[in-house]
């Protein structure tokens, strides 16, 4: 399993378009990908799941990938979120 902890800096949090961007990025990989916030963990490929976390701006979230493409997945997701200025 690969894991990374990052800070959400998008003013709307991991909601709205940023959430869809994250789900879209995660959905491209075969690995199981989860995102955790305040002790709750959801499937990062699930729009409803990610949006239900209610992650506000300046939150710390932990993304974890488990599976054959876990290295590529975690790197790519981090890159996309950073390029879109969703995480610091």
């Amino acid at each position, binding site marked *: 399993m690969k894991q990374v902890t990052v800070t959400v800096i998008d003013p709307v949090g991991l*909601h709205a378009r940023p959430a*869809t961007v994250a789900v879209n990025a995660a959905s491209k990989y075969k690995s199981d990908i989860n995102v955790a916030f305040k002790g709750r963990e959801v499937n990062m490929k699930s729009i409803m799941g990610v949006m239900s976390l209610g992650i506000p701006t300046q939150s710390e979230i932990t993304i974890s990938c488990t599976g054959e493409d876990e290295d590529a997945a975690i790197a790519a997701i981090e890159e996309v979120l950073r390029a879109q200025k969703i995480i610091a």
Partner: protein
Amino acid sequence: AIAQGLALSKTTTISIVMSEKLFSYNSKILNGLMDVAKIYNYNIMLHTTSKGISKMQDVIESIVKSRVDGVILFNDNFSEEELEVLHLYQIPMVVVGSKIEDKKDGNVGNVYIDFEKLAYEFVNSYFEKGITDISLVEDKLNLSMMHQLRQGVEKAYQEKGMKFEKYITYDDTYRSSYDFLTEYFETTKPSELVITFRDSQAIAFINACHEAGIKVPEETQVVAILDDKYLRMVRPTISSFNFPDYDMGAIAMRLLTKMLVNDEAVKENKDIEIGYTYIQRQTTRLD
């Protein structure tokens, strides 16, 4: 070429139906719908209703004819009977906006804000401050939401043994509620709290107060239900409620996706209530 043809015929197509008048107000919901549709490679057919040009009946006919896989409807676009007709053709549907009242069965999804609860809670919070002179301004573009808000306000009044009497409505001779309200508040002393639905209504109100020399929020307070970027751009900035509208669109499209594949998770329950938060700005007092 045959394989390609087969692939083409398998594309899922979703119809989105909305009133032209509401494009700019619902743009974030539409963004949420479109982004999720894109992830699932859906084609989106857009249908609009427009007074004098295209009626809901025509839209329904064209949806049925084009054999789309699913439909997203915005509330305030259709009547119970129209929903019934679409339902007859067994097209999976999700209604986004407010709560559907008297839903006949479990085959229609609903992603909604509980406007009745919102109004009930908000009015009660003002009762606690000792404020009972409250007006609710009608928005003709969102009559089903207005109906639910009004019910919430009336319920709060009833429970305190009072009667709600200040529902401000206007007739069709006014081109816009902005024009009506600008005129109305020139001659009418405002309530202690005025609740409007849209930004332009609240802006008309603060402009009228400014011209009449009535101080906001000292002498009268105003809140717009639907948040919008303009509410923080005008002076004073206008209090409102934040709805995650993009999320509503995204969730509505995802819900429809799950309905199309008969996902177990949504077989029993297709109703998703969306939360809201109050945004305190300069037109309301905290005391």
